[in-house]
Structures are given as structure tokens and as C-alpha cells.
């Protein structure tokens, strides 16, 4: 479809022309987190399969997910999941026809971004990651 206009029909302004807005940026992050979460789930399923195997194999996988690199991916995935959860709720609110007022949409965007970090911190604290 990239060549659909064949250089003849007028095109609406492209994404690159628009100044980034809260609504567009927070929405694209929702999509990026959704795609990125695929990796997090592959690792979690690897870990679950390692639980069924047990022994040294479990220790290795479990050790990797608690190492600095594995831990970073896990904490990143947790944040992505929190963001996607809150961002998804916002999209459901939009789908029901509410929250299109610019001020409300902006405020919901900030709520999703700030809320995702707060939620991540709450989970990390209650899971005892820092203790």
C-alpha cells in the first residue's frame, strides 16, 4: 500500500511532520511495550519449563533471571507489563467513547506513565527484590 497514491493523489501529513504529542507518544509506547513483552514471556515460559525439569537446569535458568542482565530484562518486562496494563485500560476508556477532551487525554497519558513506574516499584518492593 506504500505506493497506493502513485504520486498523484494528495497525502495527509506523515507521522514525521507532526510534533510528538502526549496522546501519540503514550499510545506508541503501548504498542512497543506490547511487542517487547514477547521476550519477557518467552523467558518466563523458559523458566516455567525449567521448573518442571528441576535440578541444575532450574538453578541455571533461575540464576540467569536473577542475575544483573536477566534481572534487568525481568524488571524491564515488569515495567512494560504495568505500562501496557494501564495504557490498555486507557485505550478501553477511549473505545467506550470517553476521555477525548485534550486535557483529559493528556492527564491520562501522564497517569499511565507515572502510574507504570509506581506500580513497578510497588511490585518490586512487595516481591522483596530490594530486601
Amino acid at each position: 500500500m506504500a505506493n497506493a497514491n502513485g504520486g498523484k493523489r494528495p497525502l495527509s501529513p506523515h507521522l514525521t511532520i507532526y510534533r510528538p504529542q502526549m496522546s501519540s507518544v503514550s499510545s506508541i509506547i503501548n504498542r512497543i511495550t506490547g511487542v517487547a513483552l514477547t521476550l519477557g514471556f518467552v523467558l518466563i515460559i523458559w523458566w516455567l519449563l525449567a521448573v518442571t525439569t528441576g535440578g541444575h537446569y532450574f538453578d541455571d535458568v533461575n540464576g540467569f533471571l536473577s542475575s544483573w542482565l536477566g534481572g534487568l530484562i525481568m524488571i524491564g518486562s515488569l515495567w512494560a507489563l504495568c505500562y501496557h496494563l494501564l495504557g490498555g485500560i486507557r485505550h478501553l476508556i477511549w473505545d467506550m467513547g470517553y476521555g477525548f477532551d485534550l486535557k483529559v487525554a493528556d492527564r491520562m497519558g501522564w497517569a499511565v506513565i507515572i502510574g507504570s513506574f509506581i506500580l513497578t516499584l510497588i511490585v518490586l518492593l512487595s516481591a522483596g527484590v530490594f530486601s
Partner: protein
Amino acid sequence: MSFKTAKGRVIGLGSAKEGAHHWFGERLKAVALIPLTIAFIAIIAPLIGADHTTVTTALQSPLKAIALILFFVVTFKHLEEGLQVVIEDYVHSKGRVLVLIVLNKLFCWAFGLAAIFAIAKIAFAG
């Protein structure tokens, strides 16, 4: 020349056959994933890095096992639909779109079933 009326020619065409149904199904899964994701995080987050006995004991609880299986069933359907939209939005060759959509379906079924298998095996046998 056709003897069909203008209306007769267009009935059954157009995009409004399955669209609303599909759209609604996507949203229904998203709504179901709100409580299921909270359950998933609450169950799994404390277990990563824990010792094997702690993990298996926790996952042998029927309620946790069922919540996790429900979570993975809905998540992988949601992931499949989401990745398909991303593929359709950003890949502009028809052949490549088709191949990627099939690979996406294979990937989501394989990993979704692997997750369910693992949870069931832990719940039944430890």
C-alpha cells in the same frame, strides 16, 4: 448487462460482516486481562529467583495454577492478535505479511501451549 438492482449487487459485500464481532472479541480479551495480569504479577513476581521447592509448592495451588493457565490462554490470543496488527501496519509486501502472520500464529500457539503444559505438569507432579 445485469438485471440485478443496485442493492442486490452490493448485499453481502463490504467490510461489516465480521468486523464488529472481531473488534468486540479483542476488547473482551483486553478487559479479561486486567484482573488476570494482576493475578499473574502477584503469583510470579515473588517466585523468580526463589528456590525450587518454594516455586513448586506455590504453583501447586489449584487456584494459582488455574489463574495462570487462564492468563496464558488469553494473553497468547491477545498477543497473536496484537502482533498481527503490528505486522499488517508496518510490513508492506503481501507475501511477507502472509508468511509473518503464519509464523506469528505458530509462535503464539507453541509458546502458549508450552506455558500451559509447564503449569499443568508442575501442578500435577511438582
